[in-house]
């Protein structure tokens, strides 16, 4: 496989996603859920015939005109400003009076102050994980591998954030966990390839990095594909059958997983090549 020779193509493909992603992040940002900006979500189940418009009408009576109502099947997500327990109970009662039977599924309330903390923690977690991995890879391999792997991680984070910004998918704290997991797995993929590079490097005296990398990628390709497949099986099953609560978590994970597998082959390895050539 001529992956290193064709690396410019892969750089361009990644840039085609990352650049619009960054533009979108700068101009419209991310669709932050209540975990970040504070507020309440009420999640209820109602009769099949109930429409979002009817729910909105009821909300107007409670001066909650600016609330968002999202319907998925016969379940409704009602996003409002921070609600007290009393107001939540009143709204539940109001819905019952006007629209018949209402089953309480869940409610979340998050104060506005917690959001900045969540963002700070996410960046801290990301930073600490990156430093620890860089250290580990430097000790076990060579710093060049570490730098390439971290750059690939940055690439993955930018792609996932960019896609979520462009699509305006809502992000919450589970999203951060998903991103971190994806980082763990994409570095796992890179390590398996780098491990083979390390091994092949010892075997040959003449170091033709282009050939070395192509060979290593090819040798580990079966593993890369099979591992993505088996992980995708379980993730797809959860996405389709796992219920609405966990859907976004799994979706973020799946997007990140595919990106991670792609980047370990088409980004991390070529980047290592660039670094190795430069030093």
């Amino acid at each position, binding site marked *: 496989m001529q992956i290193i020779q064709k690396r410019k193509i892969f750089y361009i493909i990644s840039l085609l996603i990352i650049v619009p992603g960054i533009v979108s992040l700068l101009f419209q940002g991310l669709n932050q859920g209540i975990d970040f900006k504070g507020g309440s979500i009420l*999640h209820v*189940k109602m009769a099949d015939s109930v429409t979002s418009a009817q729910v909105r009408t009821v909300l107007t009576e409670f001066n909650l005109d600016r609330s968002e109502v999202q319907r998925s099947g016969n379940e409704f997500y009602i996003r409002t400003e921070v609600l007290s*327990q009393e107001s939540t109970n009143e709204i539940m009662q109001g819905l019952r009076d006007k629209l018949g039977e209402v*089953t*309480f*599924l*869940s*409610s*979340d*309330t*998050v*104060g506005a*102050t*917690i959001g900045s903390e969540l963002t700070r*923690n*996410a960046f*801290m*977690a990301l930073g*600490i*994980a990156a430093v*620890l*991995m860089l250290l*580990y*890879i430097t000790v*076990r391999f060579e710093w060049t591998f570490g730098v390439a792997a971290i750059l690939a991680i940055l690439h993955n984070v930018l792609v996932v954030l960019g896609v979520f910004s462009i699509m305006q998918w809502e992000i919450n*704290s*589970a999203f951060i*966990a998903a991103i*971190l*997991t994806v980082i*763990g*797995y994409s*570095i*796992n993929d890179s*390590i*398996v390839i780098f*491990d*083979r590079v390390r091994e092949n490097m010892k075997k040959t005296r003449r170091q033709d990095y282009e050939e070395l990398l192509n060979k290593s990628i090819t*040798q*580990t390709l*079966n*593993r890369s594909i*099979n*591992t993505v497949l*088996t*992980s995708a*099986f*379980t*993730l*797809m*099953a*959860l996405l*389709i*059958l*796992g*219920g609405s*609560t*966990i859907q976004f*978590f*799994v979706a973020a994970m799946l997007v990140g997983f595919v990106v991670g597998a792609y980047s370990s082959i088409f980004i991390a390895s070529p980047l290592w090549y660039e670094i190795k050539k430069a030093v």
Partner: protein
Amino acid sequence: MRAKSSIIIVAMLAALGLLANFTYQPILDTIKLGLDLRGGLRVVLQAQESEGEKVTDDTIQKAVGIIRERVDSLGVKETTLYPQGDDRVVIEIAGEDDPEAAVNILKNTAQLEFWDEQGNVLLTGKNLKDAQARVRSSDQQGEVLLDFDSEGAKLFAAATAANVGKPLYIVIDQEIISAPTVKTAINDGSAVIEGSFTAKEANDLAILLRSGALPVSFEIMEKRSIGPTLGSESLDKSIKAGIVGLIAVLLFMIGFYRLPGLVADLSLLLYAVIVLGTMSLIGAVLTLPGIAGFALSIGMAVDANVIIYERLKEELRLGKTLRAAIDAGFRRAFWTIFDANVTTLITAMVLMYFGTGPIKGFAVTLSIGIIASLAVALTFTRYMLLLLANLSNNEKLYGV
């Protein structure tokens, strides 16, 4: 050699079967489910720093102790309490019909004060020795009997003596509960709060006063409530999804790797027992993201096998004998798997440190899974493959 290997294989399979069969039910019974899977309420309380009083670790520890005492005496069922960060307390309630009401009572500061007409504080709940609720026989209303310690008795005597004919305000958390007019100085160190309480309210108040005031007041910063319907629905759905995903993985492994694939599947079974067993033993909580973490870690456990088998195939193609190929395959694959898993474990650990609630559950499950998969691959999988190699040298069985 062949006969001996066959016997060992059969014995191992039987042992594995028995293990799975006998641990299955106890694990299901003992594993702790998170609130998102069984329904419940999780509240994060934030200490409100008042002027001149810094919230310290000590303050929070004290508050947790007091709230715990309240939980016990109020009889709130299945409650978990722990401090979070420097200035927060997390309360999780699983077994209550109206957890909201329980939290509203628990989080009361319950700062008792006696004021005179000018609003001077004459006496506080610090000097309280005991508080008991009782029901007035005249109108079935509740009231709370206060009993002061010796210093409190002196202060109360002085307070009543100075205010004869004037009202004395009984204030809880800056709210006037009752304002009786003092008829005569009271020297026996006891008083009665006669607000308009029901018997239950009087009882709750007595418990709050007995447990003492919280050293600082708390506001609800985050509240997540999961109805029982959604909890059990999520549990059913995610288990079903997990089983479907697992079967897909099992079939794929046999289809792609043949005989070793079957060994991988058996390894997965052992792996599942170990992970879930460990979780129930150490009392780890299984959350919804935790189930996702478990599903993912199955992918990870398979990955160890995939790396080994790919290596095994390579070694076989180089013309090695099956036994030599298995040895070389494992030796080479070990460090690959080790390095790859350590890096993933690093992320899981960081997540465990920074995450809260369900996310922490996810990180715990993932970490246990990573370690277990490494252990199973290097012991069980390896031994089984070597035993099978004694039975047959047919490389077709290895998909080469």
